[in-house]
């Protein structure tokens, strides 16, 4: 049994690329948990995709031991994702900690994500240990960045540690600060058991592996436990800690972080945020747990070949095993046939899921443009949740059309404020305020429809600020808006998968833009292909693709016939990758044309 006084639980919060993984590795190296050889392999990120993108999605705890002033301490580092889409997961991690290292790049300075995560940590009453990283870089500007940190999140300049995760400079001071500044966990090892389930994953051999932070009491191997939410009982077959490889132990007591398995077959039996207690001597009160994350962005996923539907279903089910924040349900599109409407936490999440699908299966997929979840108050007084443009009822049945609004924080060079404000007002943003972190850097706050944010805002921000701007947003609620469904007709046939929900005022512009893009994506056919955009029965834009003029090869004699036939086969293969709607072949890319930005 461990004495909680000698345990410290903490996270590292940082903007992407500010060196979080390197710092984590350095801590592991310094405490002897990994060898020099493993260093920089970024032990914490064990999914390829995460490593490629330098981001962490799934939390992975690591337990290390550090002797400080003659006393051995158990330090539990609980990793956090670094992207706005995964804010919810950050909260989950933070709930298992008493402190957080706020890591800021000494050159890049405070970024939107830094601010967002710092506030999350403050909300969770965590002690913040501010660390300036990459202090050894010649271009570092420590004093200016410390001033930004003070201005943006209120850290005291004298508390900021200076370090280089890459070289190991200042790491001992960081370890000392973790022990000295972060309070020990409060629980009692003898109390009735309360352990927070903060994550889980599925292992083919062991069943569900449950990640826990013990709040009160002690869990032991062989103990009969109860998951309070579902009131199910299990016996702990194996338990341990990640050091960083899974290392078995016989008990985990108040303040400790680790995992257990109990021959649980279905991931759905384990609820994140649930409380684990002793089956015979249960606690009276469950822990507050978490709010379920709600998918904010939806898009349709369809197999190009309708026969692949079942295969796609299996691939999605497999993905969901380890990512419960992603949802899917079957839907039918007139144009695309059978597919699934999938829900994601945000655009990055969507992109990651899509890449995993492509990597793990051989399926050719058509993905429709993403949309947010809308609410419609019907004339009958019901509230309908609309996660697909196809579900929008007739205008006559709509009392009020509502869309999700977010508060969005931009952190950007002061010189770009004007451009950004113009961009935001074009996207129906409502100005809230500007704060200057320094004469050259500012935080700009807007309230804006989420739909406008996912449309192209991130790319635009990057281009306006030459890559120096960052953004972060959180959900405010639903607001009424004058929204309409914009339909697209290809050769006089409505293609439901190309419909989008847009603000009435922008419908004409979006419609024209969309048709122009479609015109580029769809090849010439043997006949004129007519493209139309419509709101209700009103056609608001029209384009046409002129028929093919000449397409005939001159020679085809002798040995050429074999070659010619191979060419036909290749062309036919290309056609197969397209969706045929009516007589028109529509390439996969066309379904994303809706997403293309305005300029």
């Amino acid at each position: 049994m461990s004495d909680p006084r000698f345990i410290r639980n903490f996270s590292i919060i940082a903007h992407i690329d500010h060196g979080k993984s390197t710092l984590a590795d350095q801590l592991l190296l310094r405490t002897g948990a990994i060898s020099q050889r493993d260093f920089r392999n970024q032990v914490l990120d064990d999914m390829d995709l995460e490593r490629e993108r330098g981001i962490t999605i799934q939390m992975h705890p690591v337990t290390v031991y550090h002797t400080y002033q003659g006393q051995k301490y158990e330090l539990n580092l609980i990793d956090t994702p670094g992207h706005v889409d995964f804010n919810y997961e950050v909260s989950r991690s933070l709930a298992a900690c008493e402190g957080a290292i706020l890591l800021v790049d000494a050159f890049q300075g405070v970024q939107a994500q830094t601010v967002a995560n710092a506030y999350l940590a403050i909300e969770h009453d965590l002690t913040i240990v501010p660390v300036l990283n990459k202090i050894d870089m010649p271009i570092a500007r420590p004093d200016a960045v410390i001033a930004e940190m003070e201005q943006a999140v209120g850290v005291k300049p004298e508390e900021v540690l200076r370090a280089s995760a890459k070289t190991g400079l200042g790491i001992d001071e960081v370890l000392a600060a973790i022990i000295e500044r972060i309070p020990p966990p409060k629980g009692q090892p003898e109390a009735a058991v309360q352990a927070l389930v903060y994550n889980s994953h599925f292992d083919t051999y062991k069943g569900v592996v449950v990640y826990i932070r013990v709040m009160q009491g002690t869990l032991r191997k062989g103990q009969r436990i109860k998951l309070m939410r579902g009131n199910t009982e299990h016996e702990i077959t194996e338990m341990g800690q990640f050091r960083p490889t899974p290392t078995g132990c016989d008990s985990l007591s108040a303040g400790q972080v680790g995992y257990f398995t109990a021959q649980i077959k279905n991931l759905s039996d384990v609820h994140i945020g649930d409380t684990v207690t002793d089956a015979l001597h249960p606690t009276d009160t469950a822990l507050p747990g978490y709010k379920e994350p709600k998918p904010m962005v939806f898009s349709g996923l369809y197999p190009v070949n309708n026969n692949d539907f079942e295969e796609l279903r299996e691939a999605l089910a497999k993905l969901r095993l380890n990512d419960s924040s992603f949802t899917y349900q079957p839907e039918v599109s007139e144009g695309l046939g059978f597919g699934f409407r999938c829900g994601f936490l945000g655009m990055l999440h969507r992109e990651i899921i899509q890449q995993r699908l492509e990597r793990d299966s051989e399926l050719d997929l058509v993905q429709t443009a993403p949309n947010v979840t809308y609410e419609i108050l019907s004339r009958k007084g019901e509230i309908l949740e609309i996660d697909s443009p196809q579900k929008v009822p007739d205008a006559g049945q709509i009392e009020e059309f509502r869309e999700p609004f977010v508060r969005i924080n931009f952190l950007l060079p002061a010189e770009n404020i004007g451009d950004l404000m113009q961009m935001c007002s074009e996207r129906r943003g409502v100005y809230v305020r500007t704060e200057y972190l320094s004469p050259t850097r500012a935080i700009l706050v807007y309230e804006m429809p989420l739909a406008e944010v996912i449309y192209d805002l991130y790319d635009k921000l990057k281009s306006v600020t030459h890559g120096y701007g960052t953004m972060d947003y959180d959900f405010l609620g639903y607001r009424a808006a004058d929204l309409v469904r914009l339909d697209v007709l290809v050769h006089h046939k409505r293609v439901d998968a190309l419909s989008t929900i847009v603000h009435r005022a922008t419908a004409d512009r979006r419609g024209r833009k969309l048709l122009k893009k479609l015109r580029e994506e769809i090849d010439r056919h043997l006949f004129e292909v007519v493209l139309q955009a419509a709101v209700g029965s009103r056609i608001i834009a029209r384009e046409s693709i002129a028929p093919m003029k000449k397409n005939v090869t001159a020679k085809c004699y002798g040995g050429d016939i074999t070659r010619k036939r191979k060419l036909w086969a290749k062309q036919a293969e290309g056609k197969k990758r397209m969706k045929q709607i009516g007589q028109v072949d529509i390439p996969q890319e066309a379904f994303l044309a809706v997403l293309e930005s305005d300029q």
Partner: protein
Amino acid sequence: MNVLPPWQWPRAAYIHIPFCAHHCGYCDFAIAVGQDEQIDAYLDALALELQTLGTPQAVRSIFLGGGTPSHLNCAQLERLLVLVRRWLLLEAQGEFSIEVNPDSMDEAKVKVLADHGITRVSLGAQSFHPHLLQVLERLHGPDQVARAVEWVRQRIVNLSVDLIFGAPGQTVADWKSDLDRVLALEPTHLSTYGLTYEKGTPLWKQRERGLLVALDEESEWQLYREAIDILEEAGFEHYEISNFARAGYRSVHNQVYWANEAYFGFGMGAARYVLGRRETNTRDLRTYLRKILAGESAIFQSEELGEEERARETLAIQLRRAEGIARCRFRLQTGRELDELAGEAIRRQVELGLLRDEGETVALTRSGKYVADAVIERLL
């Protein structure tokens, strides 16, 4: 063997002569430049390859193609012709064609050809405009074409001329004057080939590097349409996508190909289609000589199509003909019903005005000819 139908057992033979004075910019055929010292060995090899026939074969068509068959000197030409005729017996009214270049012709060669039974000469004129001949990297000048025609005409009536359209920079006016000049030569047959940028050819490389700009689709279409208009007006029948003939002068050999019938093939890079099997000889001169002279086969690729594949191929090829596909003959040749293979697609193309269905036959319309590849693709 001759009891087998012509799509099984050949009534035509192709003999490839790869030697050329120069590699033209657009050409991706199997050729050999600067290796004239191998010509005699090549003729030895051809003799051996022909011998594999076992017994002489009666044919309706022999085609000597290249490369440049006329690049051979008189003695070599004579040897070639004698050799070919020993193994391939031309039926009465049969066609014995040879491809020639304007710059490699002279009166003596024409005499050799005529004396050894050549009945048809196909002359690669390509263009009458020096600047376009230069783009195509042809060695001859416009005047040489007229002179070659004059020599041929003294002894051989059936003369076909090849033209290429769609060269970079070619205008409609350029093309019309080409057509006028070729008509003035009074050929019996014309082939007009739209320039294609075959991968790996000098012209293709130049286009890849941005050194030349290919004509756009609209211009190519105009040129093609002009060719059909002008030549039909002049009394030629547009009997296949790229081929025009005066009445009675369709190429027998071409028609074998476009009917998807069988043919023998001899020589480096030559293709043959015998008993349902397609074979191609190696395109490398040294390999060809080594293999054949060692008594081995020079085949480097070979395939036998399944019934359906063969039927679809037949459909695609026959549709290029003016007469299109005859349903009854198609069934006989392929064992398949045309409408089972492509009935729905045919109806659709008829609606679009690209095919006409006359009950017994299905053929491309005028607009269908312009986009024949796309139409065919829809039927496969």
